[in-house]
């Protein structure tokens, strides 16, 4: 393979024109913001499911972070299980949001569990060693079973 750097022949270039205002994602303030999680109240915990299979867009991640933060703040002692069923891609920004949520949960003496993580996504947690500080369980049943203390 001839490296791109130093190559004399420019490859085909696609200029992607702006299709709307750039760098800014507008939400109509009169409308509720789109949610990217589904919250299921369970007698044992609050279950969070993602509605997106790719958690990589910064706007999506910020919105997920805001919703999870509200969930934590609204509970005196949160018991949250986040299931990754259906999630195919995850970025480092999403990891950062999960860490922020974990820190808030810990500050309220609550519990956070992650579960149903596929092998490729699990590898991301292992590479970054976040599997050592985020409690990851195989599935929802084991995540619920691992929750201790008062409901």
């Amino acid at each position, binding site marked *: *393979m001839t490296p791109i*750097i130093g190559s004399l022949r420019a*490859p085909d270039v*696609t200029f992607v024109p702006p299709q709307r205002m750039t760098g800014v994602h507008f939400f109509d303030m009169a409308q509720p913001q789109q949610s990217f999680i589904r919250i299921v109240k369970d007698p044992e915990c609050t279950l969070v499911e993602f509605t997106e299979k790719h958690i990589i867009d910064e706007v999506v991640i910020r919105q997920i972070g805001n919703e999870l933060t509200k969930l934590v703040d609204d509970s005196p002692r949160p018991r949250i299980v986040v299931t990754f069923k259906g999630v195919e*891609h995850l*970025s480092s920004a999403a990891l950062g949001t999960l860490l922020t949520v974990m820190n808030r949960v810990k500050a309220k003496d609550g519990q956070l569990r992650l579960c149903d993580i596929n092998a490729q996504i699990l590898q991301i947690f292992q*590479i970054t060693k976040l599997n050592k500080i985020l409690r990851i369980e195989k599935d929802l049943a084991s995540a619920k079973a691992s929750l201790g203390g008062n409901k």
Partner: protein
Amino acid sequence: MAHPAPGQSHDGRFERSWVLLEQRDSIEGLQSDVNDALAGCGYGEAASFAIRLALEEALVNGFRHGNKGNPSKHVIVECKIDPQGVELVVIDEGEGFDPGSVPDPTADENIDIPSGRGIMLMRAYMSSVEYLHPGNRLRIFYSNPNAAS
């Protein structure tokens, strides 16, 4: 057999560049084209996953840290795919930076800090990751593990 991406030769070789502003639609279009080209060149799911992840992290770094979120600044992506490997060059309009200045996110004192894992993930999934002087030009290479030697 997957359909080749636009501009992809019959033997799977693909070479293309994009000039992007920070828009999700544009980034998804690029990712889709690269994914199609990878499939057209015989790359499997593991390679697609790794390259999508590395490209996403490179783009976020370019727009966020390189261009400092300035919506009028561009990121250029050059992509070259053949049966031996995938080369991506990502260039932002920033002043560049020293990748050695990024602290190890797996160190005990940094493990619960929410940021700083993008470069680490790129290094983990790609065969080589290098920032070229002055640091606003990133070259990443994925060597096809199934390539005929």
